[in-house]
């Protein structure tokens, strides 16, 4: 018997450089804890947040949705339990439940197994909460945190925009609110707002967005040198490390590795048989598991709608007009505007360039914002490209809503349809 454990065969060729991003994120959380212990401000926020505005003020920002994924990935069960103990029903937004639950644990109001190190699982309690009003659950979740933690919250109210005529007035409406948000931040920090720093943060964000656009181009190559899961694992460079000088450098490392792969003909998975587009959010707490599962089926997920969240295009980020760029992000997002105006939809042609064989729609059981738009999005693209669609059910972070057997059956069904169509050609 060998002393070496048997090497498990892996089908997903994870881009190694993405690991450095994960390490940078962990270092960031550590910094947030250290700073909070020194009395520095921590902000939590959710949605298509205006996080560059907060970063430029020197306030540590925790993207609440990402923190939920962190809790889920670390298999920490107590946040969900603490929420249920407070009166939450399972079907309500899992991000909200995980956050209220985390707040109860951090506040010492709910017991947990002390062998878990909270510094590795969540973030320090916030001094302030920022809300983007991307959905009603987000608003009420902010209100609950305000009351439970007795902290101020700031909500930027965004009207849904359904036609071009409504676009410019709403841009002005949100921009005006962002100016008021700056005043709010100044009061909170007791310092004049650092507009030069905001310009710098936006410039870095623009550089990062350019890297992400390059990734989209790389995904068009066959075999694709990376997968959508690799792209998503770089998202924290936007949601957590945004505006930090290391963010574009880390992304550059990912691109360099992918370009090397292209030169050597190495794909993002072992053997690419199918190219699939992913609509909806993701099973964030099991990203590696999903990446491997897809790869094992011969699927390269070559793109998805979530790639268009969080400042996806460099040309839309003008560091000299930062508030306008920040206002544009939530208004143009497909969750708040109509499909025809949303970049991920009006840009559906990218699916043609990606040469997709089919679509998987991820229905996040507890997210009415995202699961509410999925059907239309899938219909929008499939009717234009004639590709088959399958719907799978899960959640962002709550394992209770994912059924692996059901998932496998539905995806296998999709692949059989694709195979049958190929045979028919």
């Amino acid at each position, binding site marked *: 018997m060998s002393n070496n454990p048997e090497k498990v065969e892996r089908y997903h060729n994870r881009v190694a450089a993405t690991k450095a991003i994960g390490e940078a994120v962990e270092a960031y959380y550590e910094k947030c804890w250290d700073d909070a212990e020194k009395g520095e401000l921590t902000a939590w926020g959710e949605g298509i947040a205006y996080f560059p505005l907060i970063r430029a003020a020197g306030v540590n920002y925790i993207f609440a949705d990402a923190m939920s994924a962190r809790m889920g990935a670390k298999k920490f069960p107590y946040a969900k339990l603490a929420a249920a103990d*407070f*009166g*939450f*029903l399972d*079907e*309500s*937004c899992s991000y*909200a439940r995980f956050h*209220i639950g985390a707040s109860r644990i951090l506040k010492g109001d709910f017991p947990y197994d002390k062998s878990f190190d909270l510094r590795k699982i969540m973030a320090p309690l916030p001094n302030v909460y920022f809300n983007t*009003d991307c*959905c*009603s*659950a987000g*608003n*009420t*979740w*902010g*209100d*609950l945190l*305000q*009351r439970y933690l007795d902290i101020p919250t700031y*909500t930027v*109210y965004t*009207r*849904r925009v*359904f036609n071009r005529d409504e676009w410019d007035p709403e841009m002005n*409406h949100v921009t*005006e*609110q962002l100016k*008021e948000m700056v005043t709010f931040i100044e009061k909170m920090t007791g310092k004049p707002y650092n507009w030069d720093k905001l310009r710098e943060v936006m410039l870095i964000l623009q550089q990062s967005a350019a890297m992400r656009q390059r990734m989209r181009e790389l995904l068009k190559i066959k075999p694709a040198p990376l997968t959508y899961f690799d792209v998503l694992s770089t998202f924290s460079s936007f949601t957590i490390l945004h505006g930090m000088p290391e963010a574009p450098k880390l992304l550059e490392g990912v691109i360099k590795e992918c370009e090397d792969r292209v030169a050597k003909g190495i794909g993002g998975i072992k053997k690419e048989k199918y190219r699939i587009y992913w609509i909806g959010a993701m099973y964030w707490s099991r990203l590696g598991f999903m990446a491997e599962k897809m790869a094992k089926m011969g699927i390269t997920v070559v793109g998805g709608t979530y790639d268009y969240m969080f400042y996806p295009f460099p040309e839309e980020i003008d560091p000299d007009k930062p508030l306008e760029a920040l206002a544009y992000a939530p208004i143009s997002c497909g969750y708040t505007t*109509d*499909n025809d105006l949303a970049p991920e939809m009006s840009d559906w042609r990218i699916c043609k360039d990606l040469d997709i064989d089919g679509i998987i729609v991820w*229905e996040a*059981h*507890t997210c*009415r*914002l995202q*699961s*509410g*738009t*999925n*059907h*239309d999005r899938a219909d929008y693209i499939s009717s234009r490209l004639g590709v088959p669609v399958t719907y799978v059910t899960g959640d962002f972070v709550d394992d209770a809503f994912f059924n692996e057997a059901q998932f496998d059956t539905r995806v296998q069904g999709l692949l059989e349809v694709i195979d049958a169509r190929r045979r028919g050609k």
Partner: protein
Amino acid sequence: MDSVLNTFIEIRNDPYEWIRNWKEKNQDKKVVAVGVYHFPEELVHAAGILPFGLQEGNEPIVEGYSYIYPAYCGYSRSLIDMGAKGNMKIFDGMIITDICIQLVQAQRKYLRNFPQPHLYLFQPSLDLSKDRNKPDLMVDFAKLRGQIEDIAGKPVEDEAIRNSIKIYNKNRALLRKLHDIRHNNPGVIRARDMQAVVMASMVMPKEEHSALLEKLISELESAQPVQREGIPVFLSGHLCHAPKIEILDMIESMGGIVVDDDLHTGYRYYAKDVREDGDPMDALIDRFRQIEPDCISRMHPKNRWDEYLLRKSRESGAKGVIILQPKYCEHQNFAYLYQQKTLAEGGMDHILIESEHEMISLEQTRTKVQAFVEMIQAKSTDAVRRHNNVKQS
């Protein structure tokens, strides 16, 4: 009394059938379907259009599932299903109010999948805590007025709005009078009938409803006091559509006597009047900005439904609160966190009953309600026994 009530009951039983018949008889009149909660119906009325308060349909959801994920509340799923079946073409326009993401998505489904003229989303700015809230609302309400003018094909004059405000205030005053009659003589009108009266007010022309309601009130005022044994309860919940009458019946059959409520098809609908003097648009906005009856769909630090619920249930003489929560309604579930805490700390017993569009597990609900009523009865008996023991000793 029965003939008046029967008109209301007929509407409650099938509001869509009723409005179809009404349209046939009033072919020169326009009807606009509106999401009633937070919506200033007076503006539609002032345009000479009948506002029809959108209700959950009676039919099982079938076609709608091709367009929406099932974990949506029954009301929004039902609206989408009726759109998919083509049932909503009878309306000359539809304006859904943004009180939650599920209704926003329902409106989007119509825009993309079931197009018809004049589909709008009314988006009142919900953050009441900000200085900019009122100016924002002036923009939101002005936009709504413009959309209604588009449907009407003519301007909506201020004077017409003032007149509509008076007509609506009168109806609300009558509904509050009925509410008080029920409170003072519990059991004089059943919960299901009270609901029918309010739902009919959301559907039929206000002037006709007020005339019928005056008759009903007059008959109820002369009715003998009803002697009913039971536990006085406060009904809470269902922010934007009606609870199932089967559940209301069950509560009463298990010994609950409804003495007050904050339901959408109840006090919440007629609680607040609109100021009749000054600028009418300003008055409609001010009504929207009044916090009471508190709810969770608007943001303000003083907006605390739980505290409102405890105070109102105590004032009503209720011995318990029954919270009726539509499955998948996040607003209500979020509100419940502090409701259960505040009610418990205030010594007010409560029970949470979840309901679905297609009624499921009614027997389970019956057991819960029965246990709740018996628990309160037992507490009351214990209290009497303790009181007697003290007196004897």
